[in-house]
């Protein structure tokens, strides 16, 4: 008997079709409905077990627990009991309102039960032996009343401060957590962090199936919230600290979504929308799901390239979302109209949404959450971020790059093709992009306006395009009243390329021998 028990403890590996060892049953989980949290826990909290959520004052544990119940009731048909030892029902209702939750309505419909336990030490006199059977009866009754499948105890540590017999409290809590398992409810128990200790009274000794730690600290003048799965028995989990936000939709945890880089790679191509540019991409355009970087100094035409791409997508009937962090939608529309791109009709037909925002309006995390939400709501196939570079107003280069990495990841999972413009400061080596984000991108196009022969001309080149052959030429283009147009390459007899007015002169000269690698624009 003992030998069997011991063998079961060492985790058996799954064997396909072998049958010599039983496959481990996956741990049942209760989804929290909190974006990001279910991803990093691989499905949610352990079903039927208590999870400890601990952190200092104001770290968000009560709100997390509340959201677990509310989402349970609204999205997963699991009513819940919130037993509060700290906040009054009125406070809870008010705080939940700021997350967009209507607790009173949920209570009225029997999906939520709020029970407030008041244990004021000075109003309580102790005489002789006691136990906490009243707590069991009360909680049991509440669970039965609404057929609850979820329970929150916030924060049960107050039993210790309210009652002097710690020995009894401890023993009764052990009994309570065992009892909760028999009730088949998934519980969140909150604990108050104190210094080095996870909880003030050692709750982690009895609630240790899953432990989540919340943290709030001030970094670079902005308060950042962090969440970490400290422990999750029987399940793989992301163990790193994840930033999270609390706003009027509730909590959002922002993990790097695909920790295993398991994106699907599409082989479908999307036109760049720019005449002559598709051919430079060996197979006629960007891959769907690509991240495209268009960088250049001021006025080189980055937004124009972005708008062409948007227009081409809209023509195909695909929805686009344009995040503008520099110019207003009106400015963008006006500028694009001057080169023959009319974005208005697409907006009217609900194929294009332009969302303008000042970078300084929000912190980086808030920007990321806002963008996630807009993308989730609008469901675009193409996203433009124009530009990304001025995000450094609200974060360091490293932070902005990290934010971009997460955004790109988020979009790749949805096979959204994303185009980012990046402003290179004048004078800097043109191949160095500010932020060094080119490594995150599948495609990198560089726009230039080199001075030659006393004039500035416009150039475009593909620095890289992952997974496809592409032209290595630096091509001249012009801004016409029907948009960006790449011009034919004119080579001199010595093989050098003539651009600008020199090209005009060259084209009148006798035809030079043309190298086979030159791609011609079909008229």
């Amino acid at each position, binding site marked *: 008997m003992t030998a069997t028990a011991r063998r079961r403890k060492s985790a058996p590996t799954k064997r396909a079709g072998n049958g010599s060892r039983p496959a481990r049953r996956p741990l049942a989980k209760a989804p929290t409905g909190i974006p990001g949290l279910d991803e990093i826990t691989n499905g949610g909290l352990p079903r039927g077990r208590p999870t400890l959520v601990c952190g200092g004052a104001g770290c968000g544990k009560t709100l997390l627990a509340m959201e677990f119940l509310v989402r349970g009731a609204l999205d997963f048909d699991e009513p819940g009991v919130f037993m509060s030892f700290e906040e009054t029902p009125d406070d809870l209702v008010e705080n939940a309102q700021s997350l967009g939750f209507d607790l009173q309505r949920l209570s009225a419909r029997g999906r939520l039960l709020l029970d407030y336990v*008041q244990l004021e030490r000075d109003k309580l006199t102790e*005489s*002789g032996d006691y136990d906490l059977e009243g707590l069991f009866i009360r909680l049991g009754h509440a669970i039965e009343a609404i057929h609850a499948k979820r329970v929150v105890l916030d924060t049960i540590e107050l039993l210790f401060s309210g009652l002097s017999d710690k020995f009894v409290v401890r023993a009764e809590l052990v009994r309570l957590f065992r009892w909760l398992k028999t009730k088949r409810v998934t519980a969140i128990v909150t604990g108050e962090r104190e210094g080095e200790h996870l909880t003030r009274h050692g709750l982690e000794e009895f609630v240790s199936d899953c432990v989540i730690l919340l943290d709030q600290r001030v970094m670079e003048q902005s308060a950042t919230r962090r969440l970490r799965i400290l422990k999750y028995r029987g399940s793989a989990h992301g163990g790193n600290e994840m930033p999270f936000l609390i706003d009027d939709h509730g909590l959002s945890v922002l993990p790097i979504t695909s920790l295993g880089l398991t994106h699907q790679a599409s082989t479908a191509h999307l036109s760049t929308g720019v005449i002559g540019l598709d051919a430079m991409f060996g197979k006629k355009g960007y891959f769907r799901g690509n991240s495209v970087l268009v960088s250049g100094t001021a006025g080189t035409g980055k937004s124009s390239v972005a708008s062409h791409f948007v227009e081409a997508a809209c023509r195909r009937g695909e929805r686009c979302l344009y995040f503008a962090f520099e110019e207003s939608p009106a400015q963008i529309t006006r500028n694009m109209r001057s080169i023959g791109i009319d974005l208005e009709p697409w907006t009217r037909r609900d194929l294009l949404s332009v969302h303008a925002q000042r970078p300084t309006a929000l912190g980086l995390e808030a920007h990321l959450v806002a963008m996630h939400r807009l993308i989730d709501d609008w469901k675009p196939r193409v996203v433009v971020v124009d530009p990304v570079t001025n995000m450094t107003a609200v974060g360091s280069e490293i932070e902005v790059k990290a934010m971009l990495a997460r955004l790109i990841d988020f979009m790749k999972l949805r096979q959204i093709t994303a185009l980012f413009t990046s402003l290179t400061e004048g004078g800097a080596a043109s191949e160095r992009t500010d932020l060094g984000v080119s490594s995150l991108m599948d495609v990198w196009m560089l726009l230039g306006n080199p001075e030659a022969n006393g004039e500035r001309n416009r150039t475009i080149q593909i620095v890289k395009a992952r997974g496809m052959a592409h032209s290595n030429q630096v091509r001249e283009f012009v801004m016409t009243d029907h948009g960006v147009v790449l011009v034919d390459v004119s080579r001199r007899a010595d093989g050098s390329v003539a651009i600008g007015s020199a090209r005009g002169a060259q084209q009148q000269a006798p035809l030079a021998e043309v190298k086979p690698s030159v791609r011609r624009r079909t008229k």
Partner: protein
Amino acid sequence: MAGQTPKSITALANLKRLCDNHLAGRYSIEVVDLLEKPQLARRDDIVVIPTLVRQLPPPIRKIIGDLSNVERVLVGLDVVPRDE
């Protein structure tokens, strides 16, 4: 109380004796068994068993335990002890 447990039986016995000694003729005891009426646990805000609730005169006072420490109970009830 929650069922006829030793602590609850002791508490009730101690309570009766205490009331007879110090509050003769000036008290009434209502026994609530939460096993029979669990909904009252929330109404009266009870978690500890046994709990003695002094409802009158206001304000409400609560004394928890089997009431074996008589002095404490009297203090808790705000009753001046009668010399026995």
